[in-house]
């Protein structure tokens, strides 16, 4: 491979691109010119045994699938926990073993699992690993071995997390935000081993994730193939790239707060612990600040929202463009919106703390920054729907999930404006309005994208199509069901029902909501069970699905242009692809087909009136 690199390189090295385009070469050579590669190709370790091929595998695609399956497993645990919570809320006393302790443990584990171990791992570990090398035209991640270790660290983190279900006292019930002092005091379930294992597991997750994250960033920056300029990258890659950069900057805050709380717990330091009276005794803590933890937590926690959302933004842009057969509208604005949202996301964290007792003057600053972030976010929404305008929309399962994403995301984004505006947040914070908001915007909306993405890329990963018929049933159950869980739930928040209440007793303004609580519980059970359609579809399609062939969606981006389907280790066979254009050349006037792949040189589509390359 390295010989080939040298051969390609030498004749072109002497001339810069400017002199080339003006030089006297033949026209076709001229317009097809792509700058030579700047770094040599990497050599890959090809596994030979079952263990090196499928277990300790260094192929990013396999690692992606490993991440995906592990994350889905934790997600199913999280889903079951949510059922148990909903049963308690809708039908108190129906399930006798759900005590208050258990309820709070379910709340905590559900939240932490879904946000960190499911969504983050799935988007970045799962889709990131599978798609980054393929979409930028690399053979693999730049550090395949570290990438493999990254997954196994994640795997150990999941094991430690799951182990906490089986230790004395059970998992922590501190709420997913783990606010001290209660998280490590005996009034909270699992305040001994449970919280310790949670903190260890999170620390392992961050360490493992840092290994993966550095890989994603460096691969995108350094290992793109010839012609793949940053402004020709699919938005999926922009989303994953920016999200990973956020993760690299935000996760350290989580790591240090985990370490500090572990020290408070194990060694009796007082980072987050002021003087505390418990059961008539003054504890040996003193001088620490619980609000400090909240700042650290949300300095991680808010970017974390965008760590989940930005890959979803990117992926949905690509799915919409491919299935609407039209270029994504305002690509450059989409890129800058992703980067801008990412940067701004570090300046909004305290909007989670408007009623935390922090200096009240912070409210002005954080309300302003939070609403500023609404502008680039709204622009992204406009661009998605403008992309649909005068397009040629395939109404398939993938597109349905994209549309479901738009509806739930707009809904959740607008309730976000309620909560970001400090005066509006005061009555609504810590009520069911908040629960409804964040489930809509960072639960359902990203899930819609994940499911759409599975329907979209399943043919690439397995070589077979998923069943469209089952897919549509799956979509309508999931979308309509989830929407009817969370849309009415906002109104519980208006009544003033506080979150994290095991039971409401007979509060006068709450008993009126009993019917709604029962309805939501039933809907949650239906949505959960309807995922069996999805699982059934995946399992059966692996065997009997229609063979996909190459590029079944007629997409433009590189992952569909591999010599083998599914792509093999090393992705590209003998020769790396060369990129001549952005991935959104659909229905270009003058072109024969309704799509022009990224590798198509201009000389082959000489009549196409391409505006943006």
């Amino acid at each position, binding site marked *: 491979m390295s010989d080939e690199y040298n051969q390609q390189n030498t004749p072109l090295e002497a001339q810069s691109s400017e002199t080339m385009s003006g030089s006297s070469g033949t026209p076709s050579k001229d317009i097809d010119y792509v700058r030579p590669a700047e770094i040599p190709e990497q050599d890959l370790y090809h596994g030979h045994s079952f263990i090196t091929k499928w277990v300790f595998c260094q192929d990013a695609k396999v690692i992606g699938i490993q991440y995906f399956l592990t994350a889905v497993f934790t997600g199913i645990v999280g889903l079951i926990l949510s059922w148990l919570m909903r049963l308690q809320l809708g039908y108190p006393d129906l399930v006798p073993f759900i005590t208050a302790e258990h309820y*709070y443990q379910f709340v905590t584990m559900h939240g932490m699992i879904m946000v960190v171990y499911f969504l983050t791992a799935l988007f970045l570990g799962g889709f990131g690993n599978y798609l980054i090398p393929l979409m930028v035209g690399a053979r693999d991640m730049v550090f395949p071995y570290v990438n493999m270790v990254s997954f196994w660290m994640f795997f150990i983190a999941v094991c430690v997390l799951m182990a906490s279900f089986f230790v004395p006292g059970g998992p922590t019930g501190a709420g997913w935000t783990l*606010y001290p*002092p*209660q998280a490590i005091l005996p*009034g909270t379930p699992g305040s001994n081993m449970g919280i310790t294992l949670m903190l260890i597991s999170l620390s392992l997750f961050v360490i493992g994730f840092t290994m993966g994250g550095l890989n994603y960033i460096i691969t995108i920056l350094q290992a793109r193939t010839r012609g793949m300029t940053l402004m020709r990258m699919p938005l999926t890659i922009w989303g994953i790239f920016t999200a990973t950069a956020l993760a690299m900057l935000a996760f350290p805050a989580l790591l240090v707060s985990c370490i500090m709380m572990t020290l408070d717990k194990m060694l009796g330091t007082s980072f987050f612990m*002021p*003087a*505390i*009276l*418990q059961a008539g005794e003054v504890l040996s803590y003193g001088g*620490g*600040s*619980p609000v400090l933890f909240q700042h650290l937590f949300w300095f991680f926690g808010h970017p974390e929202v965008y760590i989940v959302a930005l890959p979803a933004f990117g992926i949905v842009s690509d799915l919409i463009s491919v299935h609407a057969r*039209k270029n994504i*509208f*305002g*690509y450059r*604005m989409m890129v800058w919106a992703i980067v801008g949202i990412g940067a701004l996301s570090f300046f909004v964290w305290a909007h989670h703390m408007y*009623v935390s*007792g922090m200096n009240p*003057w912070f409210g*002005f600053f954080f*309300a302003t920054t939070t609403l500023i972030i*609404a*502008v680039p976010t*709204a622009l992204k*929404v406009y661009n998605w*729907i403008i992309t*649909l*305008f*005068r*397009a*040629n*929309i395939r109404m398939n399962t993938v597109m349905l999930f994209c*549309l479901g994403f*738009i*509806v739930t995301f*707009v809904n959740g984004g607008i309730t976000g*404006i309620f909560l970001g*505006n400090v*005066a*509006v947040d*005061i*009555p609504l914070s*810590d009520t069911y309005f908040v629960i409804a908001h964040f489930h809509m915007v960072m639960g359902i909306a990203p899930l819609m994208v994940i499911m759409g993405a599975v329907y979209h890329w399943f043919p690439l990963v397995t070589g077979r199509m998923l069943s469209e018929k089952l897919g549509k049933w799956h979509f309508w159950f999931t979308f*309509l069901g989830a929407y009817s869980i969370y849309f*009415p739930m906002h*109104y519980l928040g*208006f*009544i*003033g029902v*506080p979150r*994290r*209440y095991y*039971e409401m007793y007979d*509060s006068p303004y709450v008993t*009126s909501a009993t019917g709604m609580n029962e309805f939501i519980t039933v809907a949650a059970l239906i949505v959960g069970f309807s995922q069996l359609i999805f699982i059934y579809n995946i399992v059966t399609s692996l065997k009997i699905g229609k063979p996909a062939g190459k590029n079944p969606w007629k997409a433009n981006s590189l992952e569909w242009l591999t010599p083998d389907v599914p792509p093999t280790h090393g992705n590209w066979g003998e020769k790396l692809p060369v990129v001549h254009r952005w991935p959104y050349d659909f*229905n270009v006037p003058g072109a024969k087909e309704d799509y022009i792949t990224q590798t198509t040189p201009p000389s082959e589509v000489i009549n196409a009136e391409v*505006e*943006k390359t």
Partner: protein
Amino acid sequence: MHPGIIFLGVIVGSVLFHIYTPWWWTDIASNWGAMDDTINLTFWIGGGVFILVCLFMVYCILKFSYKEGRKVEYKPEDHKLEKILTIATTVGVIALLAPGLIVYNNYINTPKNALQVEVNAWQWGWQYRLPGEDGILGTAQVEKISDDNPFGINLDDPNGKDDILIQDDVLHLKTDRPVKILLRSLDVLHNYYVPQFRAKMDAIPGIISYYWFEPNKIGEYEVLCAEYCGVGHYAMRAKVIVESEGNYKNWIKEQETFSELIAKQENDKLKTTLFAKNDD
């Protein structure tokens, strides 16, 4: 059925649900009607955007469903349109933010005539302290709390002597008089929240936080703890009774001050020592 019709149904259903919902605000009982107004404003602007965006989406999918050979617009960018949308969104955001910040400014600036009430929270209950005739609460510390001194008031602080101590979870308030709630926690985070008053703030151990409101409707209100505080969180309720000036005065008169409590305790101690001596 075309999926566009179902999406349309979802949007129409959402709007109808909003109009006919039986679940809405508990009747407001404080001065913070402005918060409700900002929420309604957000509903109008935000709801309008939601409806417009979704209807446009539905229009597109109904109108431009896949047809072989359909002519598709090829227009990667449209700077004018992007500019208009940016400006319109910015204007909308300012229209929401500006009133919100004005209300918030009122929220954090307590009127001078506000009565002070210290709310003491612990796992899992509440107690209250009111300043006595001097109008100033004595300083207090968690470390000083004992059976004799349930609020941990500094004994050297003369301001603390006349503080009125309410070792009960029922708080009485005067109607139409601003109240500044000073929040203290003895152990973990809590939050003193009455939905009808709209206002809330966390109580944090080691710090005194505050908020204010003016109750303006006579009645009894349930207090809910609104910050997760351990396994008893959901049971951490209390009661606020808003009453007329006269009733309030009668109630205050019945309450014990810190010096009265000390005197009573010393009396008790004296008695026990006397009895002990008699036994000898």
